[in-house]
């Protein structure tokens, strides 16, 4: 917790190695239990995740981008003591807002179209989180409940949009018109699908890490998250204000993830735009112990798992659901490990 000291690199590397090892081990056990040949399945997994430059960039890292941005969203909220489970809904609203801006004004904005679309996603995500923040502040509604509910509202709102106002011109498919090349995020490497969203994710992770550790406002966020009573009494911090701002910032990150996914990967709005990135983000954030830089690491790990899982399903006929089970088990293992460690420290 001592942010003032130098980053414990060895600890982080060790932890990541442990996580990867734990993942492989759990997977092998599950594969054996379900009657699959672990050797074949794992080979497919590794090939799909990191087997080639294309697999690494276009499968793993492309998936890691929305996971990292939504993971930062969750980590920021949890740090502030807010259980924002609504990254999925905030992401969808961000994607919807971006689509609306680009389809309505895209041609007239020229070079400003893409930045404005990203900005609209940020605002939409913050606004969607703002609904939960308002409910919490004014009426004491638990944000766990309201954000989950708002996920469904967002999902069905997108469903209506792609069959109504934002549907593609022919009116056949439940999706928006494809975005023209001009408003797509530039690629980092030609020949791959890796777009500049990766740079955004890294910038935000480093920025958040620096802000939380070094600045007074970042410290206020952590203080409120750790103990709102002491923050108010000793710190004379306006806890309600810090909470609302943190909630908005958290939603903004998920909204950005939505527009980045829209303009970098899917190029159109449709209901299944996100395969649950906003939910997996909770795992990403928790496994990283809410550390912004750690989120980058766990986002890549989960991106690799999902990319590899797809390959495993294709090449070794192992259902992708197995990968979801592994993700869930990892969280349980890590939480249990942390608790054990804390208990041991407490008795020492």
């Amino acid at each position, binding site marked *: 917790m001592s942010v003032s000291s130098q980053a414990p690199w060895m600890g982080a590397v060790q932890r990541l190695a442990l996580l990867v090892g734990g993942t492989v081990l759990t997977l092998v056990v599950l594969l054996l239990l379900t009657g699959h040949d672990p050797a074949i399945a794992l080979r497919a997994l590794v090939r799909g995740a990191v087997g080639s430059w294309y697999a690494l960039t276009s499968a793993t890292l492309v998936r890691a981008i929305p996971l990292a941005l939504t993971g930062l969203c969750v980590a920021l909220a949890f740090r502030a003591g807010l259980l924002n489970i609504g990254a999925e809904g905030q992401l969808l609203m961000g994607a919807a807002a971006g689509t609306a801006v680009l389809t309505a004004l895209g041609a007239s904005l020229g070079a400003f179209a893409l930045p404005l679309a990203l900005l609209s996603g940020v605002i939409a995500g913050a606004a969607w989180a703002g609904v939960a923040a308002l409910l919490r502040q004014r009426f004491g509604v638990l944000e766990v409940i309201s954000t989950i509910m708002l996920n469904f509202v967002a999902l069905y709102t997108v469903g209506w949009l792609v069959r109504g106002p934002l549907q593609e011109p022919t009116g056949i498919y439940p999706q928006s018109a494809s975005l023209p090349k001009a408003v797509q995020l530039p690629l980092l490497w030609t020949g791959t699908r890796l777009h500049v969203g990766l740079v955004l994710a890294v910038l935000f992770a480093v920025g958040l890490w620096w802000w939380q550790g070094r600045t007074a406002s970042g410290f206020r966020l952590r203080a409120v998250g750790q103990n709102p009573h002491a923050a108010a*009494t000793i710190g004379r911090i306006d806890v309600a204000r810090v909470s609302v701002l943190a909630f908005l910032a958290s939603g903004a990150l998920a909204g950005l993830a939505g527009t980045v996914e829209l303009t970098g990967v899917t190029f159109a709005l449709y209901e299944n735009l996100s395969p649950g990135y906003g939910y997996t983000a909770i795992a990403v954030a928790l496994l990283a112990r809410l550390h912004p830089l750690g989120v980058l690491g766990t986002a890549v790990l989960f991106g690799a798992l999902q990319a590899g899982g797809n390959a495993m399903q294709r090449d070794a006929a192992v259902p992708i659901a197995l990968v979801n089970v592994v993700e869930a088990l990892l969280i349980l293992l890590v939480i249990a490990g942390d608790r054990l460690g804390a208990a041991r420290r407490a008795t020492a």
Partner: protein
Amino acid sequence: MAAPTAPAERPAALALRGVTKRFGDVVALDTVALEVRAGTVHALLGENGAGKSTLMRVAFGLLTPDAGSITLAGVSCSPPFTPRDAMARGLGMVHQHFSLVAAMTVAENVALGATGRYEATRVADTVRAIGERTGLVLDPAARIADLPVSAQQRCEIVKALARDVRVLILDEPTAVLAPDEAQALLRWVRTFADADPSHAVVIITHKLRDALAVADDITVLRRGVRVATGPAAQFTEASLAEAMLGPGERSAQVDAEVRAPRDRMSAAPHAATPHARDGTDTTSAAVLSAHDVVVRDTDGITRVRNASFTVHAGEIVGLAAVEGSGQHALLRAVAGLLPVTGGQLQTPADVAFVPEDRHRDALLLDASLTENLALRDAGRRSGHLPWRALADRTTSLLTARDVRAAGATAIARTLSGGNQQKFVLARALDEAPSALIVENPTRGLDFRATAAVHDALRAARDAGLAVLVYSSDLDEVLVLADRVLALHDGVVHEVPREREAVGRAMLGVWSDASMTHADRATPTHTPSPGAST
């Protein structure tokens, strides 16, 4: 204090022999023996951490001893011995922190943990019957959350009696009570023990006076070892204090703490403290001044109806009040944490506040001490936090104020309660505020830590701070204060610094001699406009 009449052949109500309990490398209890004679009240004395509660938790089956035996009414309790077994054998324990469900009624709480069907009327009848038999009267339909602390405590005891408990263990029962309530409880304990030869009560306490007032026998523990035991008549407050603290460890400070309550019991005028009290107060500036102040809490309930007082530079003003009188709202208003909704309150910008619940309101328990130092007024900071300078400052603070910690990077949770409180005080005083507001500054601390905190408060006073101290322990108010304010039902009265007068004023009874305004006590001080008479 009738002489115990239990025949010698009757076995002890509760006997512990050779009880040893280790937590890791720490020996919490070292071959401790305790014999509670049937029909008696037994006081278990000791400093915090001496092992009193641990011993009783062993007796009640909450902890399994590493060695030793437990015998209840002559029958040995073989392991595994659980609280359920203890209660089945007639042993009950009322913990310091009550285990009641606040949202439930008295009857529901009494029924909790029993087996079979819950019949509201039957349980209500039981509660009423116990009330008639023992004088512990409770409304079975009252919600626990609506009851005062003393009634909640009665409910805990009734809960035990409803299960036919004959041997009661009470853990610090008077700590939460007003003086007259504490007296009533001790009288009840006496009556209960005398009512039946199978009855007995163990009172865990660190209040010497309570022990001497009610107990037939006293046992003193020090650092997990039994250092004294015998009939209460063998002991004096001085000998008990020496047993609790150990030979040669009594500092002048602790001496004063022990002696002070006795002085007041004899109603003798209190010896003047070293600090000058001969009117010099009136010439120093009023730092805090309140005139007809009204304060509502965060729920909008009016907690302080009329508070008028002043606190001058270089004095400690003690606030005495029974729990629920509005003291917390008043202190927070003076500290600038609650708005004043009526009257005038003049305070300097730099008021430091030490809340009573340090875990809840004063510390980030999982953060370093440096971060906890940075917490002070973090709401007013902007830009970068100078972590290196803050760490240096923390380090020097730890040395200067004798806070025992592994260093500035130590996590707050790892400090002992006394050192946490010393740190909280040191942090409050760090930037030389002009006023200091403290609330129950020694709650949960042992003698030595208490003395250190008291020293720090007196040093702050001598350095010219205006200090306002509230303590739920009246003795602490009297030991510390130069002047005393009593708060009852949201109204403040200045009262003479005498135990009886303050005790009465806390309950809303004040003599004509006492005054309602601090200004009148300091006649040379010019009243501010707007002060009512």
